[in-house]
């Protein structure tokens, strides 16, 4: 039997149980913290340095900027000041007058500003930059100064040229010749060639040659035109003087005739010299003739008591003035007709104004007398001085024959020169008298005569009161009568118009008022209306209107025909039928088929006013 044995089967391992560690410390990761801290410190340092650098830079830039701004302001101020300085001083200065050029002023400002800068780098930068700034500004300022120098010179030359032009027009012959040579050039007395002002300016480079040529031509034209105008003005002035002489009828006839002859002669000479055109000469001659004729006509009219008659004499060819007769023969017929028409209208106006002045004077005198009478009626009888003065007024009124019987009696009663109401202030008025007078007052029939008839029944105070009322009523009666007449004649509407209607209205109004006043001033015993009541005066006005109505219509019709005839210059085809002037004229105007034409409308309006007058009673 086999004996089993055992042999070990496991060999001892050759491993040691140790192993190579793969663990490795990462220096980067381990030092990351400190590295970051280091970076942090570096960043802090960097930022601090950067901050300081920035601060320093900003401070320097700020200081530099301030200095530059100050310099800019200073240079701008100095630049502005140069505008009012002499350009030569701007460019070069004048040490003898302690005047610096602009460059010197600028450099002085730079030095002053730089001296106040403490930082060397800033000062250095400022000085470097300021040189450029000053140089650039100087270029601009000097250019302006040079331009101004040139402008001054040009202006002086232009002024000189203008002065030479004036001398050529207004100087004497010597001055004109000298001015001609200087202005336009030529050969002087020594035989030297002299350049004209503008040519010399071109030669000096102040203006271009073409400009010099234009200016020379313009000056020649200007001198010619101004000389012509001056001569024409002298001619016109002399003509006016001669017209005044010719038109003055107080001057000797020979002098006036010479003035007329010289006027014609000088106008013809001016035409020959081209001072004025033939047309202008003819116009001047016509105007002179017209002015002289009108002046003579005015003189004749103002010397005559009746201007209309005087001018009618001239129109009819009966002029006694030889100059006027001579002038009228040379006038154009239409101009002559117009002058006659105007002078006739003027004559009418002169006469009207004279009449109005006379009436105004009369009215003024009446007013003064009326006031004197009122003073007498209202005099304080207890005041002796007032009474004496009133008696003097009474005496004057007697001299002027102012009184009628009633008013005289009233005045003398108050003045104690006649029978007066009983016992001043002590007599009481009777009721019946008061009633009668009050009713008369209300009915506008109160008169001084009525008051006088009741004197015995009135106290002095009531007597005075009713006398005043009677006078007032009388005046109001005249005013109402005047308004009535004026209204019927449409006087206020036409009195300021120039045409025949205005003249007719004026004439008829004055005639009617004269008739009324004549009646009012005529004593009642002579069929007059002195002391008339309100109602009586108005009644009289109506009678005057009625009595004159036929005459009014006749005159208005004539005025209408005259007016329409005067419109034939505007409407050449207009023919008036004297029997029916309104309708025939309106028919003609309708046939024109221009109802909106301003002239047509004006004529139609006037004619319709006539028609109304002719129809109204």
């Amino acid at each position: 039997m086999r004996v089993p044995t055992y042999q070990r089967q496991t060999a001892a391992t050759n491993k040691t149980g140790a192993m190579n560690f793969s663990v490795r410390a990462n220096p980067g990761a381990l030092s990351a913290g400190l590295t970051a801290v280091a970076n942090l410190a570096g960043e802090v340092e960097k930022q601090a340095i950067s901050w300081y650098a920035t601060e320093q830079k900003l401070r320097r830039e700020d200081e530099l900027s301030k200095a530059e701004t100050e310099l800019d302001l200073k240079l701008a101020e100095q630049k502005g000041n140069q505008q009012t300085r002499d350009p030569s001083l701007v460019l070069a200065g004048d040490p003898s007058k302690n005047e610096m050029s602009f460059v010197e002023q600028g450099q002085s400002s730079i030095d002053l500003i730089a001296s106040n800068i403490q930082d060397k780098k800033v000062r250095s930068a400022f000085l470097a930059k300021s040189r450029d700034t000053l140089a650039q500004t100087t270029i601009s300022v000097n250019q302006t100064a040079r331009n101004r120098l040139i402008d001054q010179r040009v202006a002086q030359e232009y002024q000189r040229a203008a002065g030479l032009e004036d001398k050529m027009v207004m100087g004497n012959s010597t001055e004109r010749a000298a001015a001609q040579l200087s202005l336009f050039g030529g050969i002087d007395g020594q035989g030297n060639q002299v350049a004209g002002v503008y040519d010399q300016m071109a030669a000096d480079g102040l203006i271009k040659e073409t400009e010099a040529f234009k200016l020379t031509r313009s000056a020649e034209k200007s001198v010619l035109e101004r000389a012509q105008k001056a001569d024409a003005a002298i001619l016109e002035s002399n003509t006016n003087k001669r017209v005044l002489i010719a038109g003055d009828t107080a001057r000797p006839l020979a002098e006036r005739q010479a003035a007329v002859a010289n006027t014609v002669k000088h106008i013809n000479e001016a035409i020959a010299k081209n001072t004025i055109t033939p047309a202008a000469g003819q116009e001047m001659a016509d105007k002179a003739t017209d002015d002289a004729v009108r002046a003579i006509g005015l003189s004749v009219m103002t010397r005559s008591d009746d201007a209309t008659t005087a001018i009618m004499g001239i129109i009819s060819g009966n002029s006694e003035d030889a100059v006027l007769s001579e002038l009228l023969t040379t006038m154009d017929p239409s101009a002559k007709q117009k002058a006659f028409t105007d002078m006739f209208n003027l004559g009418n106006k002169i006469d009207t104004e004279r009449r109005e002045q006379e009436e105004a004077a009369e009215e003024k005198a009446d007013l003064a007398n009326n006031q004197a009478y009122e003073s007498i009626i209202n005099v304080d009888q207890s005041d002796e001085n007032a009474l004496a003065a009133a008696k003097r007024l009474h005496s004057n009124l007697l001299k002027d024959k102012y009184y009628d019987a009633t008013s005289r009696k009233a005045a003398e009663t108050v003045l104690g020169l006649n029978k007066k109401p009983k016992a001043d202030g002590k007599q009481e008025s009777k009721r019946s008298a008061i009633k009668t007078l009050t009713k008369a007052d209300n009915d506008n029939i109160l008169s001084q005569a009525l008051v006088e008839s009741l004197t015995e029944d009135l106290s002095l105070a009531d007597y005075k009161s009713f006398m005043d009322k009677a006078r007032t009523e009388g005046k109001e009666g005249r005013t109402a009568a005047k308004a009535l007449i004026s209204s019927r004649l449409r006087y206020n509407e036409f009195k300021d118009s120039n045409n025949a209607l205005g003249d007719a209205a004026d004439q008829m109004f004055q005639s009617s008022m004269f008739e009324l006043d004549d009646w009012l001033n005529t004593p009642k015993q002579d069929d007059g209306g002195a002391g008339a009541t309100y109602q009586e005066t108005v009644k009289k006005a109506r009678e005057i209107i009625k009595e004159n109505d036929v005459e009014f219509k006749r005159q208005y019709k004539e005025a209408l025909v005259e007016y329409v005839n005067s419109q034939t210059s505007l409407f050449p085809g207009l023919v008036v039928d004297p029997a029916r002037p309104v309708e025939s004229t309106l028919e003609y105007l309708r046939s024109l088929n221009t109802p909106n034409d301003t002239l047509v409308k004006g004529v139609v309006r006037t004619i319709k006013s006539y028609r109304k007058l002719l129809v109204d009673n």
Partner: protein
Amino acid sequence: MGFLFEYKAGQQQQAAYNYNADINERNAKTADQEAAQLIFSEEQNIVEFRQQFSDLQDAQAQAFRYNGWIAEEGTPLKVALASAQEADEEIATRRYNAAVGAQEIRESGVQERMQGTLNRMYGKSAATAGKARAFQSLIQTGTAIAGVA
């Protein structure tokens, strides 16, 4: 606001490193257990080997006896002693190998612990770096704002 993100980034990095260090520690502990388990397992094998060797000795003594030999003396005894010697050496070798294996495993655990220590150091450094970067960012931002203002 950038400095806040820098700071948080450092914190996150440290957390990641610490997480890795925890894993390293766990691995180290696992290695320790594996080493102990290796020794324990080998001792069980040795017990089983002794049992088997005892059976072998009995069979050997029987064989000697079958062949007429007295098993407890002379050559059979020498043979039995030689076998026993071999078995003892076998056991010793096994124990030695197990100890070496366990040592090797423990070494790996040591390495894990070292790695964990490093990770914690890295984490700390990363946190410090995050704070520093945050401050740097803060300074840059402040300087920039001051420059603008």
